[in-house]
């Protein structure tokens, strides 16, 4: 039991590649090139969800992206600081370097010429064109068309350069491209039905790892791509193990069965205990998701701004964060992540003052009725709060809030639903009263939040978007439209500062905290560096290595 397979593997491969120390003598450039051939050892990553969708453009969930990042490359990636770094593109197109025209309508992208697909075929501009057009193909079951739909007249200048036009300026497009993984035209273009290809079970990419095998319900094995054009990989194999139970996931991390505990990581209540495990490092990984209580403004109850204000005053964010989440995440006032360049630091901090909340309601005419619950004009101040059934910590938070609200004469009934029901039309078509949910509002590092806050994004009113709280503010609409067409960050920030201020004032939802997730790895694993701008911690496996 004590001899774990990983260790054995390490020793075995170490013997095989015996002369590891020699690299010290070589020049830096040579090391970079050699690193791939030096790949040694393996890493076993545990996920509590199973990656199944290998085609990066078909509908998938975040855990699938943990594989995509390693099999494929986008034109450029976003680093932990929120900056774009070239990947398949030779440089990131900007207005300054002429990659994007002043008006944001014309794009020119130059590609690397030393990239090959896992099957040996060369990577060319044709592949980029194919990928964008695939996402426009009406017959293709694309996950997202947002942004790609605006691209017109893709022209291939030569094998490693292409241009296109945008139907309108769209500032978030670089961010969208940073998660648009390029797929091979030669393997996919001839498919009769773009939705049914071998690619789904046998993907070919340009990434640092190539697809090894998948044992459904169990694990996915990736092998080092020794010809990778970028850094690494330094590991010979990566195994993504699917362990559906969070307790078992943690136990296997503790016993050493897995080297890395990934999505959904360690539960906050185990933080202290986890830090005591010898030879393990626990990492707090920032996430861009913001946990909030959202109000359905279509409900007359929540149209009263004083009600929203009172509910905010009676929301004990401090206790929720400190006691239930063990102080791991940080309280926040904004829907943008703190790491974002566009984050507004000047938002006033929400207070917790139940007495004042009661006073606000008194003044607004909501007076306690016979059963202790406040009423006004025959309407009781009672509503439901829903979230995904089975999320224990969130359920505890609901119960805590329920208690405080009851103390000021507000009845909050907890009514949680199975995920299929919760996030179906109940959520999308605004059929709820209030919801507790963690949402990533941003598009990667881009601050555009039109999808969540523009009045044209209300699905319940025939719009296209996820403004499920039915928030309408003309000024915010204007600012969102303005911000979506701006390409100079300094100027853009002013617009988004103002949007954040207005939304904070209107309170269509009450932000509580920005998520921070507990991840962990064995001591000696280097390169593990969670990125707030992507959804999964295995985004940079090419940089991982054993010390």
């Amino acid at each position, binding site marked *: 039991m004590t001899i774990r397979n990983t260790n054995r593997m390490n020793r075995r491969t170490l013997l095989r590649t015996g002369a590891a120390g020699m690299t010290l003598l070589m020049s830096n450039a040579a090391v970079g090139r050699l690193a791939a051939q030096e790949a040694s050892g393996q890493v076993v990553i545990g996920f509590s969800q199973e990656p199944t969708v290998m085609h990066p453009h078909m509908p998938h969930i975040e855990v699938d992206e943990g594989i995509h990042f390693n099999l494929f490359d986008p034109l450029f990636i976003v680093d932990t600081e929120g900056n774009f770094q070239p990947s398949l593109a030779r440089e990131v197109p900007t207005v300054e370097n002429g990659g994007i025209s002043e008006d944001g309508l014309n794009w020119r992208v130059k590609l690397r010429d030393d990239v090959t697909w896992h099957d040996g075929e060369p990577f060319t501009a044709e592949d980029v064109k194919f990928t964008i057009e695939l996402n426009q193909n009406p017959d293709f079951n694309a996950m997202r068309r947002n942004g790609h739909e605006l691209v017109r007249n893709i022209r291939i200048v030569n094998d490693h350069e292409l241009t296109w036009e945008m139907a309108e300026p769209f500032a978030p497009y670089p961010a969208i491209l940073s998660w648009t993984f390029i797929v091979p035209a030669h393997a996919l273009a001839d498919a009769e039905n773009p939705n049914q290809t071998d690619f789904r079970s046998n993907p070919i990419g340009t990434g640092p790892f190539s697809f090894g095998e998948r044992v459904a319900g169990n694990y996915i094995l990736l092998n080092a791509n020794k010809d990778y054009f970028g850094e690494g990989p330094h590991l010979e194999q990566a195994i993504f193990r699917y362990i559906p139970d969070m*307790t078992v996931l943690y136990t296997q991390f503790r016993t050493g069965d897995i080297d890395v505990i990934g999505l959904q990581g360690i539960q906050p209540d185990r933080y202290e205990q986890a830090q005591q495990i010898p030879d393990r490092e626990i990492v707090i990984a920032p996430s861009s998701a913001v946990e909030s209580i959202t109000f359905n403004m279509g409900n007359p109850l929540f149209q009263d701004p004083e009600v929203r204000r009172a509910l905010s005053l009676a929301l004990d964010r401090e206790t929720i964060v400190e006691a239930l989440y063990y102080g791991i995440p940080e309280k926040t006032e904004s829907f943008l992540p703190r790491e974002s360049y566009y984050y507004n630091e000047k938002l006033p901090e929400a207070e917790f003052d139940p007495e004042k909340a009661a006073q606000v309601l008194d003044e607004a005419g909501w007076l306690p009725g016979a059963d202790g619950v406040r009423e006004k004009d025959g309407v009781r101040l009672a509503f439901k709060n829903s979230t995904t059934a089975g999320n224990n910590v969130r359920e505890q938070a609901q*119960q805590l809030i329920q208690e405080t609200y009851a103390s000021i004469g507000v009845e909050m009934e907890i009514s949680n639903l199975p995920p299929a029901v919760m996030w179906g039309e109940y959520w999308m078509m605004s059929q709820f009263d209030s919801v507790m949910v963690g949402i990533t509002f941003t598009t990667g590092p881009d601050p555009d939040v039109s999808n969540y806050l523009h009045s044209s994004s209300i699905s319940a009113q025939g719009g296209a978007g996820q403004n499920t709280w039915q928030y309408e503010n003309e000024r915010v609409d204007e600012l969102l439209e303005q911000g979506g067409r701006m390409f100079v960050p300094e100027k853009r920030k002013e617009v988004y500062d103002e949007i954040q201020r207005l939304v904070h004032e209107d309170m269509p939802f009450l932000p509580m905290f920005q998520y921070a997730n507990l991840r962990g790895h064995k001591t000696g694993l280097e390169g593990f560096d969670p990125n707030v701008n992507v959804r999964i911690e295995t985004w940079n496996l090419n940089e991982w290595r054993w010390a």
Partner: protein
Amino acid sequence: MSMNTAPPAMAAKERRWITSRPVRRFVRHRLAIAGLVMISAIALLCVVGPWMLPHGMLDIHIRDRFSPPGSETYLLGTDAMGRDLAARLFMAGRVSLMVGIAAMVLSTFLGAVIGLVAGYFGKVIGTVLMRFTDAVLCFPQIFLLLVLAAFLEPNALMITIIIALTSWMEIARIVSAEIRSLRERDFVTAARVSGASHTWIMFRELLPNTIGPIIVAATLTVARAILIEAYVSFLGYGIQPPLPSWGNMLNNAQQFLDTAPWLAIVPGVAITLAVTSFNFIGDGLRDALDARSDLQ
């Protein structure tokens, strides 16, 4: 049960039910008595227990969380939010027992009616009903239950209905088999000749004669319903907090197995005790009523 309507032909058989023989046999069945005592004690605790404790089941004491059993005012310790585990256990017991008993009543009713109609009418209706019963029996119960639970709002009533919908088949089979064997008996023919309606014959003549096996099956169904509620809650599709049930107490406890094992042990023991009691009682009743379990 009013038995006075039974025709004389059945009198001999009937005396077996009313005379004290089954009762005596039940009383002699030590396990059954133990079960009866145990479940009465549990039920009593669940009813009066919450009033005798210093804390309510919803009182949150964040600072006292994870107190082990026996600390200060917390008889069985506290949970992750510092709520009194004993108070929750008793309230959860009410919910679990209610769900178990209500599911039993519902499924027994459903099963008895379907079995009665199928057995009495035989031919087309009977065949159709029994094939339907067979079809539902082809699904492993948990599988069927989860499919239903995954798409419905998981409150106590819904869970009860779902459990009932997936556990009536056995009773239907038992009843239909009994009825088929009784259908051609003299007393039924006599009733038919004397112009009694189908409903009368089914509910007043036939049903009382199958009451023995139904009682046994019903008792065992309570036991199974309590277990099933626990399974479904454990798998995350059961009764949702803040309403506690023994099942969802266990679901929450799973992640603290390491640090606060009592959170898992206490409700687990409660479930085992309650279910064992009902199984003991069912076993005793089976012996007393001499109803052979139906292997078909």
